[in-house]
């Protein structure tokens, strides 16, 4: 009895110890210099990045004998992806060698020391001259160095369902001149077509950055105000434009012109929107990004061949139609090399392979991106790939960019909190704006805030 119990205990102990050590040795970003780890997002209908990374992995491993590419697709909604990536970056043993970065996080991550400057490698890369000057600035740090190679950019506008508009007796093509015209079209839909969600404006914490950018900033940058004043180097709070934008959100959700609040707050709402609501003609107007058709083309997660016939696009008007009449926001994603990467040249080689002409072309078409390589932008395959390309590319003339400062992500979070408080009715727009002001002061320091 006694001997058996001790023997059993000892046996179990060795078993677990060996299991844990085997387990810990198996993975971990940089434990093996011959391995490249690549972290990127894969969520809902967004599968294009996964496709690209799998393709590049094959190409890279074939070209570099003895190297292994370890893909780490992070299955998380947008905000959770950023959190996860940040947590991974903080520890050398989990930091990826190559990472898929939203441009708005680049400066935050540079400041945190997560990213490696690429200037030395870019100088030796012939293709770099193919990138537009604007795109080269997309991942430029405040120190002037370049920290990422752009994959494509985007613009945002109103998508609308022509069939539903015709049924409701609204004009097609539609070109609203002011916010009020947008809202009045939505009200008409609500009245004439019960069961149809008149309009989607992303809002709240669940939608994450989509709420800040596709939702709030598309409104705010159509008013006289912005988030940040470049000349005084201060964040602007308590502005009339901010309040008007929150009031727009309040109208959309308060008058039930938008999706039900409980649905809109779900992080999976974007997935439902792309895979169900829009293809099934259940949403009339959608304030969203240029990439959206990537969901419905043949290679997308929800092929829907009729999309280009059913859906129209209209620029988002400025608040009262003031010059230049319409507005847009642009962002985009880059591939960066992690500062903990042991072999940065190898990591950069992967990035340059992933974004050579062929792969950029394929990705920009599949993911509905606006090309940032001149040779891709001129390629007939790209130009003929998507009937909305001209429309969204032209919006570049009126577009805006998010303030590219390390504090932006925290400001963006405060925007989402304010939106959610307003759409749920937990705070009035005035109260939510006051809270936003306090949050921004706490996040960036009171001396960097005006208003």
């Amino acid at each position, binding site marked *: 009895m006694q001997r058996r119990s001790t023997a059993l205990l000892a046996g*179990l102990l060795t078993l677990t110890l060996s299991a844990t050590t085997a387990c810990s040795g198996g993975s971990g970003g940089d434990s093996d210099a011959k391995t490249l780890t690549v972290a990127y997002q894969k969520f809902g209908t967004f599968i294009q990045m996964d496709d690209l990374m799998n393709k590049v992995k094959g190409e890279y491993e074939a070209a570099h004998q003895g190297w292994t590419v370890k893909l780490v697709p992070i299955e998380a909604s947008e905000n959770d992806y950023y959190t996860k990536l940040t947590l991974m970056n903080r520890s050398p043993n989990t930091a990826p060698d190559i990472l898929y970065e939203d441009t708005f996080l680049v400066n935050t991550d540079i400041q945190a020391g997560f990213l490696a400057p690429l200037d030395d490698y870019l100088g030796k890369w012939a293709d770099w001259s193919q990138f537009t000057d604007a795109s080269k600035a997309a991942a430029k740090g405040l120190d002037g160095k370049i920290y990422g190679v752009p994959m494509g950019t985007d613009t945002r506008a109103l998508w609308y369902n022509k069939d539903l508009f015709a049924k409701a007796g609204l004009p097609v093509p539609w070109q609203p001149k002011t916010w009020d015209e947008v809202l009045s079209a939505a009200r008409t839909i609500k009245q004439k077509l019960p069961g149809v969600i008149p309009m989607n404006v992303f809002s709240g914490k669940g939608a994450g950055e989509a709420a800040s950018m596709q939702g709030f900033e598309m409104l705010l940058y159509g008013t006289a105000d912005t988030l940040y004043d470049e000349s005084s180097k201060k964040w602007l709070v308590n502005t009339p434009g901010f309040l008007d934008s929150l009031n727009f959100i309040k109208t959309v959700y308060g008058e039930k012109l938008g999706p039900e609040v409980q649905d809109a707050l779900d992080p999976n709402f974007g997935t439902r929107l792309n895979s169900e609501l829009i293809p099934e003609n259940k949403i009339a107007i959608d304030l969203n990004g240029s990439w959206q058709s990537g969901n419905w083309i043949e290679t997308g997660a929800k092929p829907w061949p009729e999309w280009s016939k059913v859906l129209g696009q209209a620029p988002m008007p400025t608040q009262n139609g003031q010059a230049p009449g319409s507005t847009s926001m642009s962002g985009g994603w880059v591939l960066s090399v992690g500062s903990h990467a042991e072999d940065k040249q190898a990591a950069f080689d992967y990035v340059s392979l992933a974004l050579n002409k062929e792969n950029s072309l394929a990705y920009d078409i599949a993911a509905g991106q606006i090309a940032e390589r001149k040779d891709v932008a001129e390629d007939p395959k790209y130009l003929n790939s998507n009937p909305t390309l001209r429309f969204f590319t032209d919006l570049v003339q009126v577009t805006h960019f998010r303030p590219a400062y390390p504090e932006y992500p925290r400001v963006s979070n405060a925007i989402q909190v304010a939106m959610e408080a307003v759409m749920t009715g937990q705070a009035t727009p005035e109260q939510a704006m006051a809270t936003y002001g306090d949050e921004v002061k706490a996040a960036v320091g009171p001396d960097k805030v005006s208003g």
Partner: protein
Amino acid sequence: MARRLAIYSALLLIAVCFLLPFTWLLISSVQPGSGLSAKVTWEFSLVNFQDVLNAETVFRPMLNSVIISGSTAIFTAVVATFAAYPLSRYRTRFGRGFLYIILFATGLPITAVMVPVYAMYSRFNLIDSVPATIAFMTASALPFAVWMMKNFMDSVPLNLEEAAWTDGAGWFQSLHRIVLPLMVPGLTVVFIFTFVLQWGNFFVPFILLLSPEKQPASVTIYTFFSQYGQVAYGQLAAFSILYTVPVILLYSAVSKVLGGAFSLTGAVKG
């Protein structure tokens, strides 16, 4: 008689209330293509189980769970046994103080420290390390395990060891040769109790383990829920059942062997 009827109706009502939240989990797991909506189709199918029974979704996370909870339970049982011996056998002021600290620690809200644990672990580069996660889990399970172990050991009569002591046996020999063989039930309880608690532990691995291939089922099942909870609830239900079954089996096995004692002692850290 009316009184008895009232009591039985009350018990029935309570039982139904406790059963109801389970129903949809049980039903949707065996319905093909079931979503969140509680429409019963009266179709029986194991397709949901088939869909999740693969390395990626179920096997690897469950194996991770076994490794993490198993190691934690073993380390906890061993360390707690050692610690319980002097606490049970000798009276010292130090031992008494230690017992007070142990009892005090059993009450502290462990989930509250996860943020500082993260801060500390990331400072010392211990994030995403399975052994480091096990070390934290063991430490957090120890106070209660030591307490249980000491109480079990107290019920082992001392006179058996006295002979050994006079023969000059040290603590390890007495513990190993005399006390331990009599403590198999107690050891089993501590082991299984720790195992079950850590099997269900969500917050600790959620914060400390980042790589999907190291995460236990408690974390990956949440990832599955947030990604597919609305569309593939049937699969989530199947996964949940597979993940819960070992716990239920262990509970019932042990409570059969030890009567009510296990559930009673186990209760305190629910």
